[in-house]
């Protein structure tokens, strides 16, 4: 019995070490894409949204409806199946821009490196939706 308990403790300890960071915020999204001559950052912390599109900076407090819309879009993304899609070889010859995507979503942390000009469809839709809130 002791053996089983010890085994379970070790497994749980190791499993926890693999867990990502947790955040009490319901939604925190940070996305940064930068290369020589270009920067795009998107920061969303619950209702506070700020986008820097090549030094044009806009921010807004989202309405409740807008927050619900964002939450719905996020809930429809299967982050377990989402994969980074940046190619190191493309980065090495400057033909791609790495977009670092980090999301805290209801205590789960997700982090990906995307090709900024080839974002996964659902992420592109989310980015475009957030941009429309600032227009």
């Amino acid at each position, binding site marked *: 019995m002791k053996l089983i308990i010890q085994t379970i403790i*070790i497994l749980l300890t190791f499993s926890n070490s693999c867990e990502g960071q947790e955040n009490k915020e319901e939604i925190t999204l940070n996305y940064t894409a930068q290369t*020589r001559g270009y920067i795009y950052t998107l920061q969303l912390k619950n209702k506070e949204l700020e986008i820097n599109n090549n030094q044009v900076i806009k921010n807004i407090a989202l309405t409740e409806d807008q927050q619900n819309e964002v939450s719905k879009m996020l809930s429809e993304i299967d*982050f377990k199946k989402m994969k980074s899609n940046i190619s190191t070889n493309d980065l090495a*010859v400057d*033909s791609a*821009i790495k977009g670092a995507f980090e999301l805290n979503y209801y205590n789960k942390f*997700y982090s990906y490196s995307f090709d900024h000009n080839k974002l996964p469809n659902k992420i592109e839709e989310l980015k475009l939706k957030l941009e429309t809130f600032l227009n």
Partner: protein
Amino acid sequence: MRKLIFPLAIFALIVVACQDNSEEITPNQEVATIDMSDFYVYTNDSDIASKSSADAKNDKCASMKVLNQQLKDNPGLENRMYAIEKHTREYIAAKGNSTGKGKPGGGGTTPPATYDGTITIPVYVHVIYSNSSQNISDAQINSQIAVLNNDFNDTNYNDVPTEFRAVGADVDINFTLNSANIARHSDTTTSWGTNNAVKSEYPPVAGYLNFWVCEIGGGILGYAQFPGGNASTDGVVVGTEFFGSIILNPSGYYGDPKSPYYDSYNKGRTATHEVGHWLNLRHIWGDGRCKQDDFVADTPSSDGPNYGCPTYPTVNCNSNDMTQNYMDYTDDACMNMFTLGQNDRMKAIFASGGARESFVQ
């Protein structure tokens, strides 16, 4: 004590299972006279890997290996890039210096014969424009050639910090452009992207360093191709407003003066940087964190690119970044040097058996 053995064995099993299952590319391993253990085409850098708490197994245990489109389309490229890197290290090892990666081993192959003279590279420029201002003048094109010739024949290192002066290099490569080798094409395409479409539309001319000057879009200033790639896409693409030097040719077209980076990239260093790639140089930070190398011994490790005009010293990975290097991402005005180690890497591809040997034959 025995009670601990079973759980410890499980722990060890988990640790082993979570070790990086990297797929290091080591083709043609039969001759192991040069250390190639750090060579990479793919990456297993944690900076690139996807992570999610909901996918912890993939998070920690699986290396994210992303093939780029070129590698997918051209499976032999991997072997060619390996062969070029091995050739480069054999060349550097034979030179017997420590400025590049090239650790000699026991026995082995005949080192590549060096080419010691000045190297002259003829240039062919394709100008593709969708409006008249993008149809840049010969003077602007020639200003870019002048910048290349200045940067690849630099003998003054007083413009870099003292600690880097001893490794400054006169690369001794000349670029020549005959006015007949400027081809101008009116085209309705307003943004060409980085998928080599412009090269398909306007193919390269063999025997030249081909430049395509066009609107790339997507925030990209320019992109290149390493030696060993497909000949049909070999060359350098540079965004129109970043080709040429406003210092040497003030009346040229350098984009919208109100754009946020107008003054940062209008002095011709985008082409210098991309030609560095074309001559087999990697980014000075190795496209990864501190552990990822650019395969050059006399450039300091760094964990990422630098932007703007950084104040010296910029410290990363326990050393001062060489932000003045053409292979960093700093502003045109703040780039001033190649190193001796980078020079060796570039020269290696012109040695016997090198990927660009034909330019000196």
